[in-house]
């Protein structure tokens, strides 16, 4: 065989590019289908949610992580383990609220936006809004209602990408009657 050399492209890196590009194709399609950015944001969040509720199972099965004791531990698991595992980046956790129920994830580089430039007419589009849905959906499956939103985005000229997460409440488990 002749052309063996030179073909050792990093397959893991390629795989993340596959994800990035596919995501790009999805956003493009959504922008075609919907007239305004708000609708696109909503749809991305919804799809993210659907992914999150399933991704959490994959995550729990593979990471061997038990129930988190408090929101701080949750934050650590999300940033250091989950983001690392699925997107290959480790955001930093900062800006804790005094009550400890709110924090920010700071992403220095967001893998979803690797090849992206926002055109001027999409100023209200939250390109990576899928992530919010994923986080919300995943946490809901472990009995945590959380509010997730982007507060800064490098795509719109901010220095970093910031995801703000706010704990709302613990979801009570609905045990069937008569069960302990």
């Amino acid at each position, binding site marked *: 065989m002749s052309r063996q050399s030179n073909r050792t492209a990093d397959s893991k890196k*390629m*795989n*993340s*590019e596959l994800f990035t590009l596919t995501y790009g194709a999805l956003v493009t399609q959504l922008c075609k289908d919907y007239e305004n950015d708000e609708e696109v944001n909503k749809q991305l969040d919804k799809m993210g949610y659907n*992914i999150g509720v399933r991704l959490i199972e994959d995550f729990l099965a593979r990471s061997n992580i038990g129930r988190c004791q408090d929101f701080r531990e949750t934050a650590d698991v999300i940033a250091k383990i989950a983001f690392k595992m*699925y*997107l290959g980046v480790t955001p930093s956790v900062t800006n804790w609220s005094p009550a400890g129920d709110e924090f920010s994830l700071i992403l220095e580089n967001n893998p979803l936006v690797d090849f992206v430039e926002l055109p001027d007419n999409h100023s209200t589009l939250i390109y990576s809004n899928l992530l919010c849905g994923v986080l919300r959906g995943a946490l809901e499956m472990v009995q945590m209602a959380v509010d997730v939103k982007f507060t800064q985005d490098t795509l719109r000229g901010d220095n970093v990408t910031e995801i703000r997460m706010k704990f709302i409440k613990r979801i009570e488990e609905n045990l069937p009657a008569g069960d302990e």
Partner: protein
Amino acid sequence: MADEAPFQFLHNELIQYIYSSADNTAAENGRNITKLENMGFRVGQGLIERLTKDMSRFKDELDVMKFICKDFWTCVFKKQIDNLRTNHQGIYVLQDNKFRLLSNLSAGKQYLEHAPKYLAFTCGLVRGALCSLGVKSIVTAEVSVMPSCKFQVMIQKMS
């Protein structure tokens, strides 16, 4: 280092989304397949640009197809195509005995009617990749028993 789970879940959502917006008439179904195929096409074009940027030129059409079966497939699906066949007149059949996007779905004939929508994106992916390498083609897929499937590539002669 990114995991493959996000891509699989995203791909599922893509299909869900495309199909949720439409009714199930045959014409609409065809349009949905085309939409998925077009998205794959664009992704395939982008991927191949990144993948081949440090490579030497391909000798001929067969060389290109071998590249798709080995390197391209490995990058996207973590395995090679299991069998490549050709009639030497521009038709190639790529067989994958355990296709990633179907392997979580079923191992047999259950859900067979849903298989085509899980293949459309990949057909586009291959067509896009080939297009960027200067080979115009039509790519179709067929499944008889999941999770194995065959992609048929028909090369369009440039006139």
